[in-house]
């Protein structure tokens, strides 16, 4: 068990993905760099309302090479994808309460990058987000989503 957004949590997430045989098969062999932006929305107790948490995932050779927090927003150089969403949405996904694909289709998660690459590796992307949502190692010391005044439906909308 590791606390969400702790260094152990990033390590656990990396191990979770790398421990999945299917991911090794589906993941692109080329280098893929994706930045995740967790924007404070006043609902999540883990991200200040006007703050943000940024982290980076680097996939190469079918394995996650890096799954690490960033001190600032990624400047975009060498970046293939940027995923941005309110903290309560990311945390709702991590708690398996929000479907990430639906959130992406609705625009709750903003996706920027090469959509052709996304189509070419859609199965890997789906597996990656499914793992994110169905992992069970996260500790929620300040409370687990859905947060007060937020329902599952409203958080996904």
């Amino acid at each position, binding site marked *: 068990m590791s606390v969400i957004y702790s260094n152990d949590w990033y390590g656990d997430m990396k191990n979770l993905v790398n421990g999945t045989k299917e991911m090794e098969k589906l993941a692109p062999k080329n280098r893929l760099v994706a930045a995740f932006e967790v924007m404070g929305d006043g609902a999540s107790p883990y991200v200040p309302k006007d703050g943000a948490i940024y982290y980076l995932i680097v996939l190469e050779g079918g394995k996650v090479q890096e799954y690490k927090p960033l001190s600032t927003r990624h400047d975009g150089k060498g970046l293939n994808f940027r995923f941005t969403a309110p903290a309560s949405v990311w945390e709702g996904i991590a708690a398996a309460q929000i479907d990430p694909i639906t959130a992406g*289709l609705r625009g709750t998660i903003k996706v920027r990058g090469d959509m052709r690459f996304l189509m070419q590796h*859609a199965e890997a992307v789906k597996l990656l987000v499914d793992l994110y949502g169905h992992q069970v190692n996260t500790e929620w010391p300040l409370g687990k989503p859905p947060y007060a005044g937020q329902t599952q439906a409203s958080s996904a909308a």
Partner: protein
Amino acid sequence: MVGQRVSYQVLLHGGDSASGLADMLHQYLLQNCSEFPGKVRQARELTGDVLFRAAEDEAVCVRIAFRGESIGLEDVPHVPPGATVMTTDFLSVARLTRGEAGPVGLLARGKMRVRFSVSQLPFLVQVLRFMQLPEELREKRTISPWIWWAGGTLAAGGAGAGLYWYFQTFP
């Protein structure tokens, strides 16, 4: 409206308030048209509207308006009567764009639903071909064109039979 300066216009109505489906389709078409002249040639031959609806959330529905010299995308709150509509899920769309799945196979497996009039069939087939990844980005496991046409014919037959049944049952 959001659009980049490219030789071919792909416009997204609604800007930041557009759905994720509209936004991603916009990026996809813009990237294809700005890098692959063959896609622009295909786009210029298209005139008509088609609605793409997300099977994961049918409230998310995007109209793609092909106007020959431009493409416009916008969210539609309700599906207008008589509109050509394709409803499918994220993974099936990906398989369609990669040429690994054809519409008939997806229809048969319930992974795709299509509503169209028979007269729209050639347009719909052209749209599906246009939506595929450029040849240069695809693996060599594509579906040959005759399967698309055979599929289209089968789909048309099915649609005709469906309409016949409908008008016989509910005159």
